[in-house]
């Protein structure tokens, strides 16, 4: 039991536990809609586009949350706008803007005279180093995202499932699309310190993808995704502590492992599924 309780003597570990499980839950909730809308690539793009914002904030000595939020929200809205206006396929617009923004971040980063360790943390996550102030900011942002999804879950669901029917009956589908992109951007900002820019897409997509292997009902899908999003960071953080491994990567690996287990034993895809065939 000491292995469980020993780490809890460290305040930084408790902060990391709270931060990463909150990140896990927020990512899972938003991730369900990301998966159902087919926006996984978009999530990856928005997270990479936050990088120049973080570097800018560092250069201007401002809070990184602000820089990341501005860069991520602007890029996500720009992608939405270019797709609608530019006659381009969505993934093409994403590919162009995402690489361009990340390159801008790397360019700015390389111009910083001395090597800066904490910027590196934004690429791969460094949740054990999170400060109390950052934890409060992250919790506030995370709760805002959860509150918006809680209020608009049925509008988001309808406009995801049938955008034409929803728009015709009066739901503001276009505004909901943009709002959802902004929610993805905020979620990514919340997640940056925990898992980093490169791996946040896994936190967004893997819980929902795992749940999709197990159920075809929306409420159960959401509940299962939240469960994975809550449990994986806790298990991952302990593993990283015991094994002295990178925390962000360990959390993502735990989620990936849960996904693989669900893939192998799940009722819809597993090795032991009934011969009668899959539903749907």
């Amino acid at each position, binding site marked *: 039991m000491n292995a469980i309780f020993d780490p809890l003597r460290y305040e930084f570990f408790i902060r990391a536990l709270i931060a990463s499980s909150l990140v896990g839950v927020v990512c899972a909730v938003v991730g369900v809609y990301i998966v*159902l809308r087919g926006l996984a690539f978009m999530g990856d793009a928005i997270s990479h586009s936050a990088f120049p914002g973080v570097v800018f904030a560092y250069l201007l000595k401002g809070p990184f949350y602000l820089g990341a939020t501005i860069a991520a929200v602007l890029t996500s809205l720009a992608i939405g706008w270019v797709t609608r206006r530019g*006659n381009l396929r969505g993934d093409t617009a994403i590919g162009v803007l995402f690489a361009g923004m990340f390159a801008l971040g790397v360019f700015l980063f390389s111009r910083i005279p001395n090597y800066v360790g904490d910027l590196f943390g934004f690429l791969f996550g460094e949740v054990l180093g999170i400060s109390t102030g950052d934890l409060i900011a992250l919790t506030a942002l995370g709760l805002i995202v959860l509150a918006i999804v809680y*209020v*608009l879950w*049925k*509008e988001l*669901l*309808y406009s995801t*499932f*049938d*955008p*034409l*029917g*929803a*728009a*015709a*009956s*009066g*739901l503001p589908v276009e505004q909901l699309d943009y709002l959802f992109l902004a929610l993805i951007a905020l979620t990514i900002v919340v997640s940056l310190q925990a898992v980093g820019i490169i791996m946040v897409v896994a936190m967004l997509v893997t819980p929902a993808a795992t749940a*999709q292997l197990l*159920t*075809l*009902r*929306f409420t159960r*899908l959401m509940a299962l995704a939240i469960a994975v999003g809550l449990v994986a960071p806790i298990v991952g953080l302990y593993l990283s502590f015991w094994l002295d491994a990178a925390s962000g990567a360990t959390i993502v690996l735990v989620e990936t492992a849960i996904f693989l287990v669900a893939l192998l034993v799940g009722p819809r895809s597993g090795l032991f599924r009934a011969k009668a065939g899959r*539903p*749907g």
Partner: protein
Amino acid sequence: MSLTSVSAGYDGRVAVEDVTLDIATGSLTAILGPNGGGKTTLLKIVAGLLRPWRGTVLVLGGPPGREAHRVAYVPQAELVDWGFPVSVWDVVMMGRYPGLGPFRRPGSHDRDRVRDALTQVGMGDRAQTQIGALSGGQRRRAFLARALAADPDLYLLDEPVTGVDVTTQEDLMAVLGAEAGRGKTVVATTHDLAAAAHHFERLIAVNRRIVADGNPDQVLASDVLAEIYGGHLITIGDKTVLLDDAHHHDPEGPRR
């Protein structure tokens, strides 16, 4: 509802040109025409989903979209993601969402409406089925139930009876006929000439422009049909047969 000199299209490509028509409240109207002829485009204009390039449109006394809460739109079955994790009940309940607004959750009145709508389309025992597990006919029934649950004044249905069995077709059209009888306006697109002639009071044939408009006997006069369907039509005795690719995807414009 009325359209006056309306032209519209996608990405600079014309889909409908100079369309003028009036549809009376409480009528049952089918829009006919070949693939790419502009049927879905007309429906989208009325639904407020596509802004016309030119012309004026009045729907339920205002511009399209102003009375959106009184409109129910059923998309083509091909555009629906049938693997989506929702049950028949969930889909029909969606019909109630726009009337509820963002802060209210569905209550007992909404559940009653959903139950009634499912009974009306003969799906009362299928409420908990995932939509992907339904047959083609059951899928159309579920979507018609969603429209009914919204209690709209205007039904806009894109290919509601294409490719379904005769029983389903009869059932769905009986429900729509009853709605028209209650003063609701029903506009549906269809490929299916026989179904259109059999079930609708008025047919509007479009092929970019309106090529015929009237009751089934007038519109199904074969020279009009020959004009819109070209070589796809053959006449055997007194029967007109359409050699159409009714199951092909309608290639009108982008999905959203």
